[in-house]
């Protein structure tokens, strides 16, 4: 591969270099480091920019200006009479190939043009090929190189020695192979979760297969990895059941029509009648758990007794309004405005004894009656008998509609502190009318649990 060194650079009418008719000529040595030094303001930056403009087609400092500042208008030297910038570059090869001369021009009102005085057929492409491997380092870039991170500096050096494209591709491969990127882009984390969930589901299915095998074949210790053995054992066990033998035939359990087998078992067990019986058995079982015991009736009796005691106490002291009247009278008699303690402030009757002790005694009686009422509410709330009746009414097998359930209205009344003796007696009547556990616990003429294929009743038929 031929490499080229910049041998000559000629500049006229570009940026700060006017040199009308007398271009600035610089000659570089291919086997040495070439440097340009001069006082400030004589055009060192313009030389750098001329090389950059020739190769890249732009001047970085002007490119960064705002559109309104019309940076391109400063490419051609404002005082050059011909109003045209001309940059000649001579590239010398390192392998004896002919030198290549390139001329880049730009008029004040025309575009950049590239030609080759040496006759290179594609001068634009030649300059473009230099873009790949050249980086021109001016002061700004050099200062930045000092400040940037080690990684960025490495990339910059890769560019300096013509390896920028290799460097970019290497970075791209590193980005592409990063586990986090692969997981995110390909959804591997989600797939991993799905695999784990499926594995758990598979494990559960395998356990069910083993359990079903053990139940049907009546043997333990089966291994899931020996599916052929499992199928053989289950087929053999089903063939041994007279009812299922015709369905299994000479085939395998895998060919069994399970729907037909289920119907055959149902028919053998009594069909619809058996289903109804199973339903009734379930209802009996559920009712057995909520059936009232003697202790529950006794608890209701205790509550009725408390309610009656409370009723008697209230009857003795009178209505709630009278209680309020007594309290008002006590407040009046005990006040400083009432001077005759034996005279009634309501009816003005004159007694022989002071009124205050009498009033206090009556009020105390009413308070005692109110306390009995509160105690009753508390007892009802924690009553085992009431809870049992409530549970009984809510049992589906009883078939009692919500509106007809005693406890619905009763519970509301209890929340308001209004427990009546009549309601409690209704509860007791319901409890007494309910069949007692002794009757429900009689031995049944059939199994208490509904039968299933493979359960003891199915094997019993064999």
């Amino acid at each position, binding site marked *: 591969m031929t490499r080229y060194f910049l041998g000559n650079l000629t500049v006229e009418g570009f940026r700060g270099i006017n040199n009308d008719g007398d271009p600035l000529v610089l000659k570089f040595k291919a086997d040495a480091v070439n440097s340009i030094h001069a006082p400030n303001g004589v055009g060192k930056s313009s030389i750098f920019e001329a090389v950059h403009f020739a190769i890249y087609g732009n001047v970085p400092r002007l490119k960064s200006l705002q559109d309104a500042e019309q940076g391109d208008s400063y490419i051609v030297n404002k005082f050059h009479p011909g109003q045209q910038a001309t940059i000649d570059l001579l590239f010398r090869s390192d392998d004896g190939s002919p030198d290549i001369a390139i001329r880049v021009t730009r008029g004040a009102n025309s575009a950049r043009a590239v030609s080759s005085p040496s006759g290179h057929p594609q001068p634009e492409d030649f300059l473009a090929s230099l873009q790949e491997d050249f980086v021109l380092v001016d002061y700004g870039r050099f200062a930045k190189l000092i400040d940037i991170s080690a990684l960025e500096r490495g990339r910059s050096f890769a560019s300096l020695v013509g390896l920028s*494209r290799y460097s*970019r591709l290497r*970075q*791209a491969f590193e*980005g*592409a192979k990063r586990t986090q*990127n692969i997981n995110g*882009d*390909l959804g591997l984390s989600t797939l991993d979760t799905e695999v784990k969930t499926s594995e758990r589901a598979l494990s559960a299915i395998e356990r069910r297969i083993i359990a079903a095998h053990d139940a049907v074949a009546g043997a333990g210790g089966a291994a899931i990895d020996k599916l052929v053995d499992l199928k053989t054992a289950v087929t053999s066990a089903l063939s041994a059941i007279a009812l299922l033998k015709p369905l299994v035939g000479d085939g395998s359990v895998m060919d069994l029509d399970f729907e037909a087998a289920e119907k055959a078992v149902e028919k053998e067990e009594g069909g619809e009648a058996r289903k109804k019986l199973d339903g009734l058995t379930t209802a009996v079982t559920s009712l057995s758990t909520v059936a009232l015991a003697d202790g529950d009736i006794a608890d209701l009796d205790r509550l009725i007794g408390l309610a009656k005691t409370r009723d008697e106490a209230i009857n003795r002291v009178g209505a709630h309004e009278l209680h309020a009247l007594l309290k008002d009278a006590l407040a009046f008699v005990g006040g400083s405005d009432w001077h005759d303690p034996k005279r009634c402030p309501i009816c003005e009757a004159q007694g022989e004894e002071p009124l205050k002790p009498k009033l206090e005694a009556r009020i105390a009686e009413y308070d005692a009656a109110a306390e009995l009422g509160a105690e009753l509410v508390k007892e009802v709330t924690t009553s085992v008998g009431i809870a049992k009746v409530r549970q009984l009414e809510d049992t589906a097998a009883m078939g009692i509609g919500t509106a007809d359930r005693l406890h619905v209205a009763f519970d509301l009344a209890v929340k308001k502190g209004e427990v009546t003796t009549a309601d409690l007696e209704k509860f007791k009547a319901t409890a007494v009318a309910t069949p007692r556990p002794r009757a429900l616990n009689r031995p049944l003429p059939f199994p208490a649990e509904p039968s299933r294929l493979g359960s003891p009743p199915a094997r019993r038929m064999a």
Partner: protein
Amino acid sequence: MEFELDNSFADNLALFKAEVEQIDPECAKILFDNLRLLDVEGETGPSRAAIGEFHKAVLMGLDALQKAAESKP
């Protein structure tokens, strides 16, 4: 493998392709069919989005490879 210092980038890439094809020709094809997504201009290499596109393209290539293998008698 080692790149040749005097080679152009394209020539060295061809060396790399030949080396990868020796390892797995089908995967090498998927890589080089989609390499343009990673070999982009600019100072900082391909964007994160471009790498995502590359991954998706590789996944599609692998899927196609699997389907082709499954359809073989």
